[in-house]
């Protein structure tokens, strides 16, 4: 039963990801006074891509062809570990938050390798930038989740959420810092403005797009979908770790229903925040990104330290 539920949740996750993307586009258009496409445009795009015949460059190796599947699979697995509407699912036991980060890294690695596989200048450029950014973002992310893990005494996500739920609303300075860090990282990792611009193909600014420049057809679809799932993953992480209220703690129907509604609401709100930031800020130069990310890193480490110094100082074992 639990396993079935877990699989269902994962499927829901996968299915809902394009919807979130559509929502974000829509809100953005509204804020920019443009006419918005329908909410389901992403699904149409994906379907269109599946139908198209993919093209492999001559110099491509098997890595180029395998990468989309690996990227997608690793993202889906990551999605499976993260409690969406309910905690205490068995999948949450398979892997904890460190493994989650590991899986992001795995997917990214193959994406980058695929980018370098063709031997185009853009592929290399994108890969180099992607790795640079991630090598600063990943530690920040780890620090942020460690802060949570240390106060919850677990790296297991559903345990941690339980912990937050049980202790109720406590104003922890560490969580505030961690939340800040986490949000900055999420923006960077999902390739949004001000770090990267998913909508551009302007040579010198693109990062993520530069890597997948040579992809087409179903491969491109898989990658796009994977990045939509990733975006949603970060959203869910932020939402459920820092504001877990409303997530179902048992498997009763109305609890689950309420959980779905709540997560949808939270994600919608987060999406609006994201869009606001995207509309308000301009994309920054690649070498400014390091300052941005080291600030995220700093926030997370501060969160950790403030947990150690301010909150846990009187804990004795």
């Amino acid at each position, binding site marked *: 039963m639990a396993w079935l539920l877990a699989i269902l949740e994962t499927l829901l996750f996968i299915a809902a990801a394009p919807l979130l993307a559509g929502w974000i586009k829509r809100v953005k258009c509204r804020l920019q006074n443009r006419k918005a496409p329908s909410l389901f445009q992403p699904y149409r795009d994906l379907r269109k891509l599946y139908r198209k*015949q*993919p*093209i*492999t460059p*001559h*110099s491509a190796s098997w890595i180029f*062809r395998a990468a989309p*599947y*690996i990227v*997608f*699979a690793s993202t889906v*697995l990551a999605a499976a570990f993260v409690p969406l509407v309910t905690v205490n699912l068995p999948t949450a*036991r*398979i*892997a904890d938050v*460190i*493994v989650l980060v590991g*899986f992001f*890294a*795995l997917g*990214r*690695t193959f994406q*980058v*390798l695929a980018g*370098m*596989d063709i*031997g*185009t*200048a853009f*592929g*290399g450029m994108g*890969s*180099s930038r992607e*790795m*640079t950014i*991630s*090598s*600063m973002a*990943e530690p920040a992310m780890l*620090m942020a989740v*460690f802060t949570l893990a*240390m106060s919850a005494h*677990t*790296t*297991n996500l559903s345990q941690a959420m339980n912990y937050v739920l049980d202790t109720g609303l406590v104003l922890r300075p560490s969580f505030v810092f961690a939340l800040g860090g986490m949000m900055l990282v999420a923006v960077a990792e999902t390739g949004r403005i001000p770090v990267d611009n998913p909508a551009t*193909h302007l040579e010198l600014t693109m990062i993520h797009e530069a890597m997948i*420049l*040579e992809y087409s*057809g*179903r491969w491109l679809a*898989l990658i796009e979908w994977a990045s939509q799932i990733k975006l949603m993953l970060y959203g869910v992480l932020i939402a459920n770790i820092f504001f877990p209220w409303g997530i179902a703690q048992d498997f009763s129907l109305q609890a689950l229903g309420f959980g779905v509604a709540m997560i949808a609401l939270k994600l919608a709100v987060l999406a609006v925040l994201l869009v606001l930031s995207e509309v308000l800020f301009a994309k920054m130069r*690649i*070498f400014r990104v390091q300052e941005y990310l080291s600030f995220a890193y700093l926030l997370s*480490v501060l969160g*950790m330290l403030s947990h*150690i110094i301010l909150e*846990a*100082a009187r*804990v004795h*074992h």
Partner: protein
Amino acid sequence: MSLFFAYLSVAAALISALTALATNRRLALDHLSQTLLRRWPAIQTKADKLLSETDYAERHRNSLFILLGISGICALLAGAGILTSNTIATDTLPLGLPWLHWHIRLDPLSGFFLCVLGLPLIAVSLYGPGYVREFEHGKYSLAVLGLFTGLFVAGMELVLLADDAFVFMIAWELMSVASYFLVVFQHEHAANRRAGFLYLLMAVIGAIAIILAFGVLAGFGDGLTFDAMRGAVLSPAWASVAFVLALTGFGMKAGLVPLHAWLPEAHPAAPSHISALMSGVMLKIAVYGFIRFGFDLLDQIHWQWGVVVLIVGSASAVLGILYALQQQNLKRLLAYSSVENIGIIFTALGLSLIFLSSGQTELGTLGLVAALLHCLNHALFKSLLFLGAGAILHQTHEQSLENMGGLIHRMPELAATFLIGTLSIAALPPLNGFVSEWLIFQTALQAGNLESGVLRSLIPTASAVLALTSALAATCFVKLYGVAFLGLPRSEHAAHAHEVRHRGMLAGPAMLAACCVLFGVLPTPLIGAMGNLTLQLTGFQLPNTSALGWLWLTPVSPETAAYAPSLVLIGTVAVGWLCYYLLYRRTGLEPRRAEPWDCGFGGLNARMQYTSGAFSMPIRRIFQPVYEIRETIDETKEGPAQTRVTALRYHFQVPDRALLVLYEPAGHAVLRLARWAGGLQTGNIRTYLGYSFFTLIFLLWVIS
């Protein structure tokens, strides 16, 4: 039984060393057999067949490595045997000083490291025959290579078996000096000679530090056997002196910053299968020495030591990988990454020391297990990578990444095995590198259990550094693989490379790759096997990890953290295959081959792609303060008055700060001192008489 296997492995290594001397001695051997075996014609005919002209060389070459392989297998058996059977085998050999015979002891700790030694050794013995063939007709004699390889291996095995300071140091120095001869094997390159000299010099100094550390224990425990030393009761001050000496000595061999300077010089200089042994195994022997000294011989542990080790370890980890990122020479890059991994291991050891000193035995044990596991993992994937690098070198004769590229098309099988090595050293799930780093993070996350707030805030900072390190490591090795194997070939050699012919040269790395996957997916039994070991060192055994069944890894408790790599692997494969099935099999749209689009720029060629230097440029900019970057841009100008710049060429070097700041000044200081000393030898006899006159006067004055 295990001890017997251990002796057997040492013997096999020594025999292989002796066999090496028979290179190109066929006639002598033949003559010998004629004279000796005249009585027994049956054996003589066999001997004649063995010594027959036809492919004697190949048979001889293989026999060397078969013996090494036997040595490795025996080491593995001995280690596994002692690890599983909870016993300690001791023995005394009638060698050494008249009042101090060689004490031999095989316990779980040494057993574990025998396994760490055994696996790469077997791989090397598979790989070797194909690799050394190119030295056959060169000016460098195979005899030297084989002799010192055997001695090197025997030395490492003896270090693990030693149970008194004397035999330990003999074996240790044997290991150092034998590996020196291997480093300078290709001695016509001045760089190799320099590397060898630096290596041996630092080995000497490190060894003296270790001897002195033993000296302290021997003084208090009056006796040079390890048993006597265990009994030594030291004042904290003396204990710290001993500990610092040991850390210096073993750290110098392990390559801790700033004592690592020899490492990136020496490892690239040696033949690749030797680099694999040096980087994969010898560094672990140093770690073994440190564990033996700090966890076993010293009676109590102080938390300050842990802090020192933690700081040094973190520094080594992050600096090591930062320098590795900027290397363009493949083997140099791998060497620097060894510095990084040793740093990670010592970070874990530091955590373990801190926890043990503050009475948190189970967490201390966890740290120790993490460190040991990472030792094994690094031994596996670093040897794999060095063997792979050797194969590339063997096929392309290119050292520099900038001249490689596109090898995945030329050497697909090697590329596949190398990829596994890359992924595991980049600590990606579900491979083995990730498991040990996961455990280290789990240890660090328990910092909350400590009393002292200072430590509680120090450890998270260290884990932050660790996180940064592993992220940079991923970048570094993605760069390595992407530049070397993917894209378009950057040189003629790379373009015309082909897969290695000798199957062994693939079998060796493949075996290691298999181990990487296996230990990555099923780490639980391995950790279970370390129970006796930790019981012996810390008096604690990790709670049986099967709280959720043996598939799960739950070091602390199921609630705190759980990781089921095998399920993860299954899940990934399942999803991947599902997509493949749905999207490919069903739609059945065959992909079309075409020119890359590349934003519409046509005429793609190899010089347009990102080079290794370009790939790591952003990191170079971001971490500017760490490096001493030397960039040069030379322009070729043409036209009237050389105004028009027709071509630009950009070079950069990132010399090691430690060399510039510590080592070169020290060298100059010595020379200055020597010049001063030379002033004593004026050459004028009257001055000399004056010396002796004033010495006499001075002494007389002192006496009365």
